[in-house]
């Protein structure tokens, strides 16, 4: 019983890490620009397709990952610079519609360029699973956890130790205040959108070996990531990480004992959390004092 729980938790953590990566992108963009980015999942899907074809061209896996992150950053940066910035001053609903539209464009592009036939995307590492005490984990799960941990650490260093990161946090608090100080808010928006698209790209590559690569494969993951973001509190990056990991673990345990609840569990959970903690587990009500 205990060993089973331990195994379910360990595997749940690697699923949760994927949710966390995407949820972080959602929260970063939401906090700094107040836009709910619905294109995140499908951007990840599109980048995963690009990665698939790079691998087919015999590009080494580490390089594929780096290129995928760069593609994501490029898509995100261009989206901010040429779509979001033009509409921001005029209409907030317009911004939401653009992200929805982008989600559809990515899906349509993927279907028309790459087709809808499900493809097999290889894991980064193959081979027999690894035994750590009573826990049995696939090599892919281990690499997912390690890569995610490295990225979480890196992002925290960026957000708390670099000027661009602290600047992004200041915009999340008070955009006007940041503009008055002369902080280059537009560059920071581009940076955040670049991050917001690069993260799901990586998440897509990490998670796709569990499914098959087709234009819809990120949709359920994106919904889970939204759940994780709300669960953790929409205005907290820490919350997004913890929310994603907790959701991954709880979902895995519930699905094992009550398979019928697997798909609906995350939504039930979010309703319960919001009833008890309306701002999520880590969310804060904004506070100001003059």
């Amino acid at each position: 019983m205990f060993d089973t729980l331990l195994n379910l938790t360990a595997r749940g953590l690697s699923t949760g890490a994927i949710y966390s990566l995407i949820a972080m992108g959602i929260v970063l963009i939401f906090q700094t620009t107040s836009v709910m980015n619905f294109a995140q999942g499908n951007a990840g899907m599109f980048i995963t397709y690009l990665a698939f074809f790079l691998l087919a061209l015999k590009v080494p896996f580490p390089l594929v990952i780096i290129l995928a992150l760069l593609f994501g950053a490029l898509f995100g940066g261009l989206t901010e610079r040429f779509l979001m910035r033009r509409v921001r001053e005029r209409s907030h609903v317009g911004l939401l519609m653009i992200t929805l539209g982008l989600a559809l464009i990515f899906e349509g592009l993927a279907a028309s360029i790459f087709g809808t036939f499900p493809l097999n995307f290889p894991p980064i590492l193959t081979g027999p699973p690894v035994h750590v005490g009573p826990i049995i984990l696939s090599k892919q799960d281990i690499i997912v956890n390690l890569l995610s941990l490295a990225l979480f650490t890196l992002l925290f260093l960026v957000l708390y130790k670099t000027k661009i990161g602290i600047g992004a946090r200041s915009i999340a608090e008070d955009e006007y205040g940041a503009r008055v100080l002369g902080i280059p808010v537009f560059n920071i928006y581009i940076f955040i959108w670049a991050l917001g698209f690069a993260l799901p790209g990586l998440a897509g590559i990490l998670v796709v070996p569990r499914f098959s690569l087709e234009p819809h494969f990120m949709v359920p993951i994106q919904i889970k990531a939204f759940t994780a973001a709300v669960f953790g509190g929409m205005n907290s990056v820490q919350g997004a990480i913890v929310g994603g990991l907790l959701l991954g673990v709880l979902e895995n345990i519930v699905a094992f004992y009550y398979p019928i609840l697997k798909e609906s569990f995350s939504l039930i959970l979010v309703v319960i959390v919001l009833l008890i903690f309306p701002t999520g587990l880590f969310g804060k009500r904004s506070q100001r004092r003059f």
Partner: protein
Amino acid sequence: MLKIEKLSSGYGPLEAIHGISLTVEKGEIVAVLGSNGAGKTTLLKTISGLIRLTKGHVSFEGTILNNLEPPNIVKLGIIHIPEGRRIFPGLTVRENLTLAGYYLKKNELDNRIKFAYSIFPLLKEREKQSGGTLSGGEQQMLALARGLIPNPKLLLMDEPSLGLAPKLVSLIYQTLEKLKKNGITILLVEQNAKKALEVSDRAYVLTTGYLTLEGTSRGLMSNENVKKLYLGR
């Protein structure tokens, strides 16, 4: 140093200031007085690039500022300390100061932060506290300290005494005099006309977006209209 010619600006189709001309010379403290809605804040926002001017020119040491974005204006040495202080409550005191030196190199930034702490030692003690936990007076000190970090040539100050206890107002004004002695030029916007006239060299009076009076501060203090309208005598 700062030269404003026939400046009009405002918010969208609403023009808030109409054809204002004023100058600030190096080393001066110049005050802009006026009641609520006179266009004082709009004037400062236009100089610092937060809103676009619709007519006229603003130049600083020979550079035309008309179409520059705030980051470029900050890089020229014009620092705006806004009304309501606008410190970041969730960021630490140190982080607030770091952002004020966005364009400085690491060494220079550390030195400037040290300098700011030497003027406001209290902030050093509060370094790791988040800005939102400071009292109103401490927040104003932080806002002032932030203004000093980038080594400004011209400080634009919007209502530094607003909402502060009289003792703190005096402290803030003493600091302004100290800054002036250090060669910093200040354009000060105030409703507290008495304090502003005491500390400044020259002053302008704005009324509903128009420049209605200008002169030396001493001269304006004895002006009957100013006395009646702004000094409550």
